[in-house]
């Protein structure tokens, strides 16, 4: 038989089975030994009765004048006979019998001692060299009834006590594994971002090492994430600063030199450096999206982040290209503001780059945490939509990015348990494109 996998199931089943078997065995043993004791008492009574009767029967029979006559003893007072007896001579003639004795139950005399037939327990005893033979019979039904009563009294309580005991076992096991279950529930209930230790003060000592190890592991993981985050920030800084320096120097060169050719070269250098910057920004974002920690311990208002990102982008495009709409109430989320910035920036830049050149890009952050970015432009086919999230896929050929913007957004969406939804044409219209995703929102009941 296969044991269930749950600790509760195992404990309950094995304890219940062991207890039931032991109890039934103990009860059976008690019944058997009681039966044995009882038989001894009954036998002793039978033997005693025979030995008390025999001298009386001898006196009675020896004093008779007629030989071979059967005398049936009348009842002194009417009663049911429990022991019956007959007295026979060597020729097997019945000399004396108790009033209810049925000769048929008495087998042929074959010496002193106990005998047993299908219905009776018998005891033989003789006197005067075997000429007077006494047999006392006791019906077995009587013993059987007493044995049954004993069995009933031993068995009936078990029928009640065993189910009660099983229920008690289940309850006790349940109570004992309670802390383990609570520990499991706490572990299950936590979100991907939560790396705080799980409270384990009431955990049984057998499982405590597991809890301690797990908490230690969580702690190390948190440390590793934090280190990674600050490493990523430092690495990004180390990469950006020289690029910023080189671009600034190239710009200074253009404004300081009078030589047209040198100015053109400096402009080329600047353009190349800017392209390098864009590509490296994208790769840093992708690394962040795929490896970094995206949800923090504390929540922040996503509206602030959205405003800054849009303001950033607005500095580089024509006025009124971007229509930002934000909820009135703060939209609190544990999503890393930097990660949200990456999401937002990529969606908007994608819309600006691939959408209509003049139409506005609508950025809508709803109170329920859904961010949608839509733009006018040609309809993107369903097959293309599917492939768009694949890395380096581009919607057009005349693009200026490294084409991983949507892949970055999709990667972040997946890691925060959300999904990037691409629709074209945009809802309610014949043209355009809309990208949307649901963000973790801790403002209301999430």
């Amino acid at each position, binding site marked *: 038989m296969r044991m269930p996998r749950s600790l509760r199931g195992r404990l309950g089943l094995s304890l219940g089975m062991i207890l039931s078997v032991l109890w039934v065995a103990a009860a059976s043993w008690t019944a058997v030994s009681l039966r044995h004791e009882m038989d001894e008492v009954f036998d002793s009574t039978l033997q005693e009765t025979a030995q008390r009767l025999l001298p009386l029967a001898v006196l009675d029979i020896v004093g008779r004048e007629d030989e071979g006559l059967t005398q049936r003893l009348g009842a002194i007072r009417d009663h049911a006979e429990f022991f019956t007896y007959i007295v026979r001579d060597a020729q097997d003639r019945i000399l004396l019998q108790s009033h209810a004795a049925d000769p048929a139950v008495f087998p042929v005399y074959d010496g002193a001692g106990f005998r047993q037939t299908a219905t009776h327990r018998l005891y033989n005893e003789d006197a005067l060299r075997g000429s007077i033979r006494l047999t006392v019979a006791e019906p077995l039904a009587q013993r059987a009834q007493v044995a049954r009563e004993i069995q009933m009294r031993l068995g009936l309580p078990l029928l009640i006590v065993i189910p009660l005991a099983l229920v008690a076992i289940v309850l006790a096991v349940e109570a004992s594994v309670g802390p383990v279950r609570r520990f499991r529930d706490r572990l299950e209930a936590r979100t991907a971002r939560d790396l705080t230790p799980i409270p384990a003060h009431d955990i049984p000592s057998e499982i405590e090492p597991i809890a301690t190890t797990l908490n230690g592991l969580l702690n190390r993981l948190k440390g590793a994430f934090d280190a990674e985050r600050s490493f990523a*920030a*430092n690495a*990004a*800084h180390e990469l*950006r*600063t*020289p*690029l*910023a*320096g*080189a*671009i*600034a*120097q190239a*710009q*200074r060169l253009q*404004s*300081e030199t009078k030589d047209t050719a040198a100015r053109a070269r400096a402009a080329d250098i600047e353009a190349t*450096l*800017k392209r390098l*910057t864009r590509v490296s*920004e994208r790769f*840093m*974002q992708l690394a*962040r999206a795929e490896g970094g920690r995206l949800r923090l311990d504390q929540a*922040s208002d996503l509206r*602030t*982040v959205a405003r*800054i*990102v849009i303001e*950033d982008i607005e*500095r580089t495009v024509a006025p009124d290209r971007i229509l930002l709409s934000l909820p009135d109430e703060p939209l609190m989320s544990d999503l*890393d*503001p*930097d990660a*949200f*910035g*990456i999401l937002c*920036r990529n969606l908007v830049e994608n819309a600006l780059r691939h959408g209509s050149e003049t139409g506005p890009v609508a950025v809508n952050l709803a109170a329920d945490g859904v961010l949608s970015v839509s733009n006018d432009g040609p309809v993107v086919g369903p097959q293309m939509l599917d492939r768009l999230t694949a890395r380096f896929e581009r919607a057009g050929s005349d693009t200026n990015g490294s084409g991983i913007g949507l892949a970055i957004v999709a990667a972040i969406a997946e890691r925060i348990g959300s999904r990037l939804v691409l629709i074209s044409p945009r809802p309610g219209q014949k043209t355009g494109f809309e990208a949307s995703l649901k963000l973790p929102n801790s403002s209301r009941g999430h």
Partner: protein
Amino acid sequence: MRILLIEDDAVLGAAVRDQIAGDGQSVDWVQRLDAAQDAMAVTSYDIVLLDLMLPDGRGITFLKALRTRGDVTPVIILTALDQLSDRIEGLNAGADDYLVKPFDLAELSARIGSVARRYTGNPNPIVTHGILDIDLAARSIRQSGKPVALTAREWALFEAFLARPGQLLSKTQLEDKLYAFGAEIDSNTIEVHVSRIRKKLGAAIIETERGMGYRLGTP
């Protein structure tokens, strides 16, 4: 204007310094926060350009300490594109504006101008002064509709007067606005620039209080 640049990268810092100097402003460039602390203790700056990651600490900490002391000098933070949390923290700590690295130097000049204008209480870059129409953002002046060209130094000096109309500015104050620490200044440099501005915009544009200084006049 006198500007403090706090940036540890030598290449970027040099380019930014040259750009600001090219605009005719005076700039002091330090590479560490402790040096910035010292510079701010002895000089009053019109704008501080603050990088957020420096060898001896975080720019945010410096900014917070500055604001805690009650110092309201405008601060523009230089930050990375994806470090939005730092940027939000910086703006919350009292930064007036930000520039995302790598930035265009023209953008830097424009930001400095816009923050300075906001600080003087008039965010509108178009100023009318008598017969002069002045666009502070574009650095252009029209006198009765005719454009007048000023050099970067002359512009910086004229801007200093425009920022404080009616106020008497001493020669030392004006030198502070135009020149960085340790720069060689001829004793009559300010006089030379004032006379050139008067030549271009009319003698009444700058009034002289003998032995005290100069103030903006009406052309």
